[in-house]
């Protein structure tokens, strides 16, 4: 039996434009949520065995249906004898307008299992829920997320974080202590460093009396002698941290 992958004589069928049609060749059908289920069932029994993707679109202000749910279908021949026979598979795009105040569409995850996660993604990002879906919950955003990020009226930085100034880089001591990175002053930082030196937690300080007094920080005791400015200058990354923090 000859291989079905063998190119036919003349190799005309391997011309890319012959095998892969322009996506604009797709038939476009527009339906309402009440009709979508029946439409897709008919299309599926008609041979559109593959649901490529389900997309969402937001047209703020459009009446009556603000959203579109878009189904991309592909008709695959049941049996393919050769590349040439694939030809130009037929495509259908089904657009389903959805109202904002009634953003529910019947699921098709029982017809095409590939619809399962696609519908969850649309629910996650557009807030359109799919009735009859076995597991209708968020898929990308955290479970406790509020809002639907791909809606056009969703603020880019999130509703809780309108444009705020970037905090300066935090020292690990500040993060460990729970101090918020923003709003710290150079004076507060110097005070904190002095406190750390006093507790002998600073890596350069090794006053034996202070070590005995605090009774902790073996790390400080490891290095002999306090950190002088000269020693600090030998550790440029330490200085950089200081500079950054004085901004």
């Amino acid at each position: 039996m000859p291989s079905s992958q063998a190119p036919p004589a003349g190799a005309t069928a391997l011309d890319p434009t012959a095998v892969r049609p322009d996506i604009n060749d797709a038939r476009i059908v527009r339906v309402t949520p009440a009709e979508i289920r029946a439409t897709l069932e008919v299309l599926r029994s008609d041979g559109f065995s593959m649901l490529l993707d389900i997309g969402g679109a937001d047209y703020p202000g459009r009446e009556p249906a603000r959203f579109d749910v878009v189904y991309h279908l592909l008709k695959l021949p049941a049996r393919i004898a050769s590349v040439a026979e694939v030809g130009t598979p037929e495509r259908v795009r089904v657009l389903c307008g959805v109202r904002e105040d009634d953003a529910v569409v019947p699921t098709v995850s029982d017809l095409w299992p590939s619809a399962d996660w696609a519908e969850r993604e649309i629910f996650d990002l557009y807030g359109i829920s799919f009735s009859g879906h076995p597991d209708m919950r968020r898929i990308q955003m955290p479970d406790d997320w509020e809002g639907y990020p791909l809606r056009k009226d969703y603020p880019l930085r999130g509703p809780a974080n309108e444009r705020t100034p970037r905090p300066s880089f935090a020292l690990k001591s500040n993060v460990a202590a729970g101090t918020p990175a923003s709003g710290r002053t150079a004076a507060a930082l110097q005070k904190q460093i002095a406190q750390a030196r006093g507790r002998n937690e600073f890596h350069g300080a090794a006053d034996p009396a202070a070590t005995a007094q605090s009774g902790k920080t073996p790390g400080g005791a490891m290095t002999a002698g306090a950190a002088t400015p000269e020693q600090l200058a030998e550790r440029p990354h330490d200085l950089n941290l200081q500079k950054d923090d004085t901004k």
Partner: protein
Amino acid sequence: MALGSGGDFLLTTVDSVARWAQASSVWPLTMGLACCAIEMMTATAPEYDMARFGSEVFRASPRQADLMIVSGRVSKKMGPIVKRLYDQMADPKWVISMGACASSGGVFDNYAIVQGVDTIVPVDVYVPGCPPTPDGLLYAVNLIQQQIKQGGRGGILARA
């Protein structure tokens, strides 16, 4: 350190030996978050060869890792997981914030991305770049080793 006159014994302190051993075997956590992870992998590949500095053993368990390389953007969904991994690492531990996204959110100044991983875990070294070159990451590991040799105890000691 002092060498004996006959050359048959060596005097040192436990501290300096322990620090030398620690600094020479900084084992990173296997945690690639985004495209910076590709450069992180390259840093371990033969051309850059992080093994020269004893850091080639990427451990898949946080219990066995000393160093967390936050290699890429951290989404808000991933943030608690990063924090949990950091908490699961045994002390002493160090953190490198690799690249613009891990350090500041980078170009992803949006609702989904943590604006700087230093809001979640304490960072020892920031590596600039988008992504940083493997050399940059190697330099950051060298800085971590310097910190260790100077007695820094990652995650605990105040460094200023």
